[in-house]
């Protein structure tokens, strides 16, 4: 993809207007770190979003509201009760990438290895977009398929709302990769609510090892009311839930092994989220 021009609008309406005028030849640009992975295509004009004041995190009782233009590093450094994204971001790439990549850029177009969609599916929340009018998607709606299909020309992500972890709820996010900065082979994210040693409900998501990040609804149902520390039972439930999924070979390893890795990682995430819930509760 060749960039032949760039524009630096100062407001969201200006950015939208520019994108609408450019049509096919315009492309929203924030950190631009993903551009090297775009295939060759028509020449584009980059519409920079960094001056739109879309960066920052603010806490409300219901949600953390994160500007789409927030660099990943900001998510890593942010600390608050119920905030869970630090550990997720720490496992993404290298600091140079985290310093410039934005949350919006990470989820506007989902690459197979993407980390944040998996975490957001588990944590639950909303994605806010500005078109002619603002509209909101739940994370489940947004990540149902490749989100680029939800955008029409000129649409921009403005913010992402993430639910804080309740006191009886824990979270774990495990990314299996060859070296620390590598793309994921298998990412598992688990949010587990515990009561009296049993998981009352959970949100579980898997990514990288399968063609598109997804929640594992059948496993969530199977685990309701179960004891996550019973590992053999947990493994059995995970294996059964993953049976219908197709796995991808990774790093020269077979899809059969990746299936096994994904299953183990998902079970580990459930186990660790449950332990995190006990810890947060006490």
């Amino acid at each position, binding site marked *: 993809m060749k960039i032949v021009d760039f524009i630096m609008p100062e407001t969201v309406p200006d950015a939208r207007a520019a994108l609408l005028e450019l049509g096919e030849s315009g492309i929203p640009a924030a950190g631009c770190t993903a551009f090297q992975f775009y295939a060759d295509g028509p020449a584009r004009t980059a519409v920079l979003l960094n001056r739109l004041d879309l960066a920052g995190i603010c806490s409300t009782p219901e949600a953390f509201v994160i500007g789409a233009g927030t660099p990943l590093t900001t998510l890593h450094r942010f600390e608050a009760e119920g905030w869970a994204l630090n550990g997720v971001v720490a496992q993404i790439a290298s600091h140079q990438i985290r310093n410039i990549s934005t949350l919006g850029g990470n989820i506007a177009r989902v690459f197979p290895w993407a980390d944040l969609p998996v975490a957001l599916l588990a944590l639950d929340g909303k994605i806010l977009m500005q078109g002619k009018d603002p509209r909101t998607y739940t994370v489940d709606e947004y990540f149902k398929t490749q989100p680029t299909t939800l955008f029409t020309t000129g649409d921009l992500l403005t913010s992402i709302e993430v639910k804080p972890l309740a006191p009886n709820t824990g979270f774990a996010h495990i990314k299996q990769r060859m070296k620390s900065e590598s793309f994921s082979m298998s990412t598992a994210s688990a949010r587990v609510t515990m009561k009296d040693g049993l998981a009352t409900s959970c949100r579980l998501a898997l990514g990288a090892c399968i063609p598109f990040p997804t929640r594992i609804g059948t496993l969530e149902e199977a685990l309701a009311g179960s004891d996550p520390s019973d590992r053999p039972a947990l493994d059995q439930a995970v294996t059964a839930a993953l049976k219908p999924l197709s796995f991808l070979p990774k790093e020269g390893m077979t899809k059969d*092994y990746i299936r096994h890795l994904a299953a183990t990682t998902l079970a580990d995430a459930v186990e660790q989220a449950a332990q995190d819930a006990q810890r947060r509760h006490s």
Partner: protein
Amino acid sequence: MMKKEAFSVVNHSVLKIDGLQLALGRKSYVADLKPSDALHVKMLWSPHAHAEITSIDISKAETMPGVCCVLCHTNTPRNIHCTAGQGFPEPSPYDTFMFDKKVRYVGDRVAAVAAETPEQAEEALKVIEVTYKLLEPVFTVDRALEPDAPIIHDEPEACIPIPVPYEPEHNIVAKVGMESGEFDQALAEADYSFDYTYETPYAQHCPIETYISMAHIDARGRVVIETSTQVPFHARRIVARTLGIPVRQIRVIKPRIGGGFGSKQEMLLEDVVALMALRTGRHVFWQLTRAENFRTGRTRHPIRLRIRTGVQKDGTITALGMDAINNTGAYGGHGLTVVSCCGSKVLPLYRCDNIHFDARVVYTNLPVGGAYRGFGATQAFFAVETQIDEMAEAIGMDPLVFRQKNHIRSGDGSPVFQALGEGKEGTPMTIGSCALDQCIIQGAAAIGWERRTPHTEKTGRYRTGIGMCCLMQGSSVPEIDMGAAAIKMNDDGSFNLTIGATDLGTGSDTVLGQIAAEALHTTIEQMIVYSSDTDLTPFDVGAYASSTTYLSGEAVRKAAVKVLNQILGVAAEMLEVPVESLEARDSTAFSADGRQVTYSEICLYALYQKNQFQIMDSASHITHKSPPPFAAHFVELELDTFTGRIKLIQYVATVDCGTAINPKLAEGQTEGGVMNGLSYALTEQYLFDSGGKMTNASFHNYHIWSMRDKPILKTILVPSYEETGPFGAKSVSEICINGAAPAINNALFNAAGIRLREFPFTPERVWNALQEKKK
């Protein structure tokens, strides 16, 4: 030889003389020398693993905007040569043309364009019209050796310049072997015998600076090549041959370079930039992209090693046999010498009366093996050190004690030394310095070897294991390689030291400066070191075979001694005393009667005052043995038996390099080599598609580690004194990369009772081994 305690410069961690300049980011590397009007080269690489070029039309490319020169087989000299940076005549086949009518791997040269900008050069590549006749590709050594296999090198000009077997019609690049004692009988009669085959993988050196060269024509019409090379003199000679121009028309200069590790012991870019400079009269600059570095650059040879060993109940190794098949890829440079080192640098480590070694080197249509730190010993130690552990296990002996019982010692020889050289017979050698016993003891203490428990007692998901290996290498290629040095003195008592020896970042400029300063009784600050310029520095084979300290260092020491004699001669004249009565110390000559003259006074006298002459001299050196450094490596790891993932807990690397001329630099070599060995063992691999193209040619999916994954690493220099080396030194740079794969494999056994026969130890490989064991 001087007593170690008396060293004032050597064995001190003096500051690396280029350290500050590099830390400041000052212009130092080839890319920094590029003028703004240099032409940029882009190469059209073969998309096919094996094909004839039936037609090629560069006419459209030649008229593209900004294009100044286009080269392909139709307009370049057809001079067969070898790209390997080795002495002449090379122990490698001449099987390469600058551009050929045939391509032999995905990444082979097809055509090159020089244009005003890299973008214009890329655009011109797109309009070069090539038609290929596809040939059956050969992707395995087994296929290559079948009687009906396609012949990869069928050019009539292919030949080998030394009298060794070369059978390109059978895809055989070389054959080498040796026998000692009665191997077959000893194996049959051993209490326990073992027969396992191991495979080692492709890997790339990944210097952070990719291959890069620039050429221009100077005012007198000579070609000046500034290049990132380990072998400036070999490069000059090979460029001369390839272009068909005399050596005297070429100057090769190596500035600071960004790492080599063996990859740049090759003439890979220089011929193209030189020819283009001659044809255009312009500066011509060529830097490979990282993907090109992986696909078209040199690699580590993948080698299949069948190791057969026999051991007695009492721990005596009675039979040691190695059968190696070396996949050298599409071209044969370094193939014979690498596989020879599988034998020569590994088989002597343990005393054994019955030794068998047989090796073949085979062409395939895959990326080309070259020189890579360790040079065959790396591959062979994985196999042999795994099997050593296996033998110890069989007889119920601690693998550390087993090694202690059997390893070579000072005063020992080995029939291997005499039999296996590099392309010819070797040199007999008796081990001089050997502190391997101390390496083992100190390393074991540092890792806590006594904490080891058998794998049979381990339970639970996460299991720790401790493993070890022993290593040796060599120092220089005796009787073959030569290095030389020249020293001249200046008014203020400083010296210019000029050496052909090549500093890749290894610090050889500093180390050789230290050796000179020690011999001259002066300080490192007084040494002005200039290296690796074929016009201005004396000859040196270059940086390989762990030679620079042991070989080039001795040339430097000898030159310094000659210059010292001149200095004292002048001092004797100045003080009117016999020269024998003088002693040199601290840049000063002292007479027996208490008078003194400083080096500055001496030089001012010699340059300006009486019987004037330039105090200067030179010396050359060839070595007569290749004294091994020795090492013992230990690793502690934690294995997740649910996934096969390995977490490194700590690593201990001990090394006996003789006298460490610069201890911090010697540690630095060891630390860097260990890290390289670790990722080679665990995460580095070449993945190929069905057409023979590497699919993971990027640091995003060829995994070498950052500081984030650095394990706890302890390095211990164990001193010894090698009488034949300058101030007792041997070498240190290669041996350190050989330990990680076998030590980890042995630690895996200690953790979970599994042994792997190939690596990298990906989680799947380890997990499969765990499942196998359960059956």
